[in-house]
């Protein structure tokens, strides 16, 4: 891969090389520490009593407790918000896949670059600028606070991701597969459904995971458009700071509850997330 190292190197360079690779290991360790220690600290704090959190001397040696999690789930009753977040993220991901995958297929096969550029507008426009008119429209229709509106607006987040990732994926699949299926008597749409889609499972997984993560993390749309019943986790947790600002343990437990699902998904599907983010990003 690296052609430079295949050239014969003068001998005295080897010690320099060893030094270089040690430095690199140290640098990587520093990067990881900066990126991960805050999250480790958050998880640790969620397992400590508030008394132990406020005293850094006791923090590291104190015992573990699950009281904060019990508090979040029972006293502050976060369970419905967890369910709301799951429902909305899941539904908006599913809809984006159903609507977006065929669009991406057509875009990749007919080279409709304008359509991709247009869909990317959804990534560029600030959410607040869309929310004022949306709020007017949905209020007039009397649907603010309902699940359909929340799911529908979250599709706005998930759809561009699905189209960008899938368009790239379909382009990497050879068109001959569909052509030979058509020779065998399938319609073009049938070839897409029976041949292309089954081969696209990795791409579909990538876009589904990314869409789910970004819908799950979305804060602004639910902040304005949800009701008490349909509130999602990010909104619930941001309200939580207002009335439980000194309950650091509870706050950290809530923060862990909301980040844990996405971090787990990202860790398990690491390869997909990396390729998807790179693809989704450069298409923008």
């Amino acid at each position, binding site marked *: 891969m690296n*052609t*430079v190292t295949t050239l014969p190197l003068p001998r005295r360079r080897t010690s320099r090389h060893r030094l270089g690779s040690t430095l690199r290991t140290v640098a*990587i360790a520093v*990067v990881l520490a*900066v990126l991960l220690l805050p*999250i480790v600290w*958050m998880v640790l*704090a969620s397992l400590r009593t508030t008394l132990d959190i406020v005293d850094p001397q006791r923090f590291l040696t104190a015992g573990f407790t699950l009281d904060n999690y019990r508090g979040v789930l029972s006293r502050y009753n976060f369970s419905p918000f967890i369910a709301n977040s799951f429902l909305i993220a899941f539904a908006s991901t599913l809809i984006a896949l159903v*609507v977006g995958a*065929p*669009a991406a297929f*057509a*875009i990749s096969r007919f080279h409709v670059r304008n*359509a991709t550029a*247009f*869909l990317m*507008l959804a990534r*560029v*426009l*600030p*959410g*607040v*600028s*869309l*929310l*004022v*008119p*949306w*709020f007017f429209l949905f*209020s*007039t229709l009397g649907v603010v606070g309902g699940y359909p509106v929340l799911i529908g607006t979250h599709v706005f987040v998930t759809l*561009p991701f699905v*189209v960008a990732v899938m368009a790239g994926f379909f382009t990497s699949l050879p068109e001959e*597969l569909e052509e*030979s299926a058509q020779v065998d008597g399938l*319609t*073009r*749409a049938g070839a897409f459904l029976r041949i292309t889609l089954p*081969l696209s499972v990795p791409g579909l997984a990538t876009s589904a995971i990314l869409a789910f*993560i970004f819908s799950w*993390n979305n*804060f*602004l749309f639910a902040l304005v458009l949800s009701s008490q019943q349909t509130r999602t986790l*990010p909104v619930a947790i941001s309200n939580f*700071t*207002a009335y439980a600002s000194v309950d650091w343990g509870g706050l*950290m437990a809530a*923060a862990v509850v*909301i*980040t844990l699902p*996405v*971090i787990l998904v*990202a*860790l398990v599907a690491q390869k997909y*997330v*990396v390729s998807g*983010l790179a693809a989704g*990003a*450069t298409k*923008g």
Partner: protein
Amino acid sequence: MITGTAPAGAEPDAAHLSAPGPVFRPEDHRPERRRGLRDRLGSWIDRHLKVLFIAPSVAYIATMIAFPILYTVYLSLTNSQGAVTRPFDMVGLENYTHWLTDTDRFWPATWRTIYYTALALALEMVFGLAIALLLRKSFRGQGIVRAAILAPLVATPVAIGMMWMLLLEPNIGIVNHMLGNLSLPRLGFLTSPGQALTTLALIDVWQWTPMVALILLAGLSSLPDEPYEAASVDGASRLQQFWYVTLPMLWPTMAAAMMLRAVDALKSFDVIYATKGRGGGSEHEVETLNILAYGQSFEFSQYGRASALLMIFLMLIVAALAVIHILRKAGQQ
């Protein structure tokens, strides 16, 4: 010819084409080929496949965007406020002149938005490129490292805000505790009006540098080897190779990453709102254009004013994208 180019995954479907002997054709074994409704529907769908497949997505995004943009333009020319259904009048460009002459909230918010974006973007590009170069060569534990750096960028922004509030808390936070141990002065971070905006930009750097690193890593791995071979034959040093080979070839990818990050940094909302609340703190010290527009819309219901502000904000975003686009073109020459 067809089977020759088919990848391994396609063999079950394509194998019969190259198989010797009688070729299996599904239509031969169908009971009776009726040219019925289904076939006609199928061929109609095929003829209109492009439109049928793309239309739902485009129609959805168009509806969700076109109506808001047109309505925002319209509202920005009115004095709409209060309840959604309350009648309002046209006031011309009054809302625009209100903001452009507002040195109290608007101009400070504009400068804050630009400062936050420029600081975050500059640091993210430098650190992102450094990390990408660091992870470029394969090493043991590569998979784990690449997975680990994903954590900040998939974590929920609101939770990230909570997390940093605890870490940076002036009295109990571990960061100040460590500064104290190193006999450095303790800082207010998010709570100190003079430091909060910079602190938030640095949180943005913490969260999104991995994203830039991943994009640039993808860009680096797709660079061809030949220019490096030529450069090393010519005796170019590592630094020279980086400056004259890597950077110019990576430039389009860097511009794409910059564009993405610029847009997202300009419209940052979640972490700022989660840590500093409405109005951007007691002295509006972290009030960016996005936070100001949100407050005008959904706290004070000043829809006319807010719409004019959003139009100005949109122009700022377009201007930022244009600048990066020009930079990209310039870098390619």
